[in-house]
């Protein structure tokens, strides 16, 4: 419960920031723009003809849910990668602010365990990422659903995947901040993890191109642990666009991503427990 209280505190702090206000306004504006200006005559026409004649008039028109798949695919990728980039930049100074002189002493004087402070910060950021991603994707689903009559919850599930991916990146940012209280370094660590996650996605191909040596071994070791973010993004896209997906593979990928985040949080907790303030 203490961690949840810390998380809620972080969400209150986020609400007061312009970054998140701007994000909320931008997402809302974009959804309103879609709602008022999107004209889906082709889809509307196909739907109307189907209702009227029992089949489309023009037979090379795809059904509405099939026609919308690319839209959901692109939206899921925007939420995934855009969310990662925005999250790394906007959340970089949460942990440094937590550890700032004066505030950390105050927090440590409260009946809160050190690891609960870290867990609360992590959960707060995760909730923020999840909320933003779900808001954007659910909004898109609502807009397109209202326009076309196609209702699907998969883009929202896909957005949740994006939030989990960001969670693994933020765990690394938090761990770095516990060592060095710097927003810039935290953001750099986040960006590095995103790049490593991309490299891990194409690990086998890249290893094929490398000659034997220390560099290859180092790369192989690093990319064996980091979650392959590209695969997660592909899975998110496949979910959003109702493409086939191996369920076992996705579950393993998710479990691995969560384990990686938990490992980084454990390292951060280890360091945080022994640090003097």
């Amino acid at each position: 419960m203490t961690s949840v209280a810390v998380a809620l505190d972080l969400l209150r702090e986020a609400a007061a920031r312009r970054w998140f206000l701007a994000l909320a306004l931008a997402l809302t504006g974009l959804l309103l723009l879609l709602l008022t200006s999107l004209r889906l005559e082709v889809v509307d026409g196909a739907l109307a003809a189907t209702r009227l004649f029992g089949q489309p008039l023009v037979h090379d028109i795809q059904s509405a849910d099939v026609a919308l798949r690319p839209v959901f695919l692109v939206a899921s990728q925007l939420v995934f990668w855009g969310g990662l980039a925005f999250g790394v930049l906007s959340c970089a100074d949460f942990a440094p602010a937590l550890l700032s002189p004066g505030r950390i002493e105050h927090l440590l004087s409260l009946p809160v365990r050190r690891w609960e402070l870290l867990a609360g910060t992590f959960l707060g950021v995760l909730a923020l990422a999840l909320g933003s991603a779900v808001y954007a994707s659910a909004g898109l689903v609502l807009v397109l659903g209202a326009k076309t009559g196609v209702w699907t919850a998969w883009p929202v599930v896909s957005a949740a995947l994006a939030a989990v991916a960001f969670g693994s990146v933020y765990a690394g940012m938090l761990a770095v901040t516990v060592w060095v209280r710097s927003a810039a370094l935290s953001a750099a660590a986040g960006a590095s993890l995103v790049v490593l996650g991309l490299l891990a996605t194409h690990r086998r191909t890249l290893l094929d191109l490398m000659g034997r040596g220390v560099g290859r071994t180092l790369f192989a070791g690093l990319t064996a642990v980091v979650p392959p973010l590209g695969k997660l993004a592909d899975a998110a896209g496949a979910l959003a666009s109702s493409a086939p997906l191996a369920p076992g593979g996705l579950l393993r990928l998710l479990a691995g991503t969560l384990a990686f985040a938990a490992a980084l949080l454990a390292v951060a907790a280890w360091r945080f427990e022994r640090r003097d303030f």
Partner: protein
Amino acid sequence: MERRWLWLLAAAILVIAAAWLVRIPEARPPVARPELEMPRQLRPEERQRMLSRLTRPPVDAGAARAQVRDPMLAALSAAGAGSGVVLEVNALRNSPLGELLLQCLAEREGRTGALEALRQMGIDPLRDLDRVGITEHGVVVSGDFRRANWEGLLGSATGAAYGDRGQITAVDPRQEGGSTLVATRWGDSLLHLGSSEEDGQRVVDAVEGRGPTPRPLLSPEQSYGEMYGVVSGQDLAQALGGSEGWAAALADAASRVELHLDARRDVALVADVSGADARKLEDLGKTLGGALAVARAQARAGGDEDTAELLGFARVSPTHGSALSLEVALPIEVVARRLAFCRGDADAGR
């Protein structure tokens, strides 16, 4: 143990779990490129084999030369061919690769195939054949043909005598209008199949050491591996096809390719490419290396793991002076998987 160390222990366990979980199992674990000894020179047993094949030309063979020669290599060089390949049939037959190929042939042809037909003519291809050499001027076969039924094979038990031990027989053209086949026997150990009597005479002259010495296609020191040969740049370009410009550029850069295949266990192939222009050869090496890497990456990106795996077994060595080397090391289990289609396996080629 202090509580804070438990965090580190938990982190270590979680990292291992993450590494295990994010490694999504692949359909088949990739087969590592085996570190094979590439065929680069005569091995002791091959040196023994090479020395045992060297013969002295007959003493009364006109302007006889004193030097010893390998009849098969002399026959291949007779017509001045630019390209030729020799298969060590006997050695290949007794290798794991040969076993696989024979199984394949037996499954495909059954007992009524070409092997059985030859056996009925007194030549057991698995026992009597030693080597088969191929050039653009014909095919040379060496082995033990003492039990051969020449009348059944060539239509005549004897041919026109030529030289010391040669017999030349013109075999009737095939009914479907093929060109005339001229079979030239040298004793009971060498058979040349060509298209003209002159070719046959040149072969006997070369083997018996008459006339001018032809430029050797392959020297005895090059007779290592279960398959060896040389291919001229022009023949290589012609065999690979492609546009005229591409073929001309390839022939210009690579004047000669020397091949050696070792199939004693796994399959190791070396193709040494030589050319007059070192810079062009270097470019060719980089082009080949780049093409292999791109093809492998494309195959992997396209989900074609079989092709990616096969391409992973090939490597282009850096150019040294006026030569570069293409090396292929294929594990025998990969070859067996590729030949599984012969046995009608469902996973053939996978």
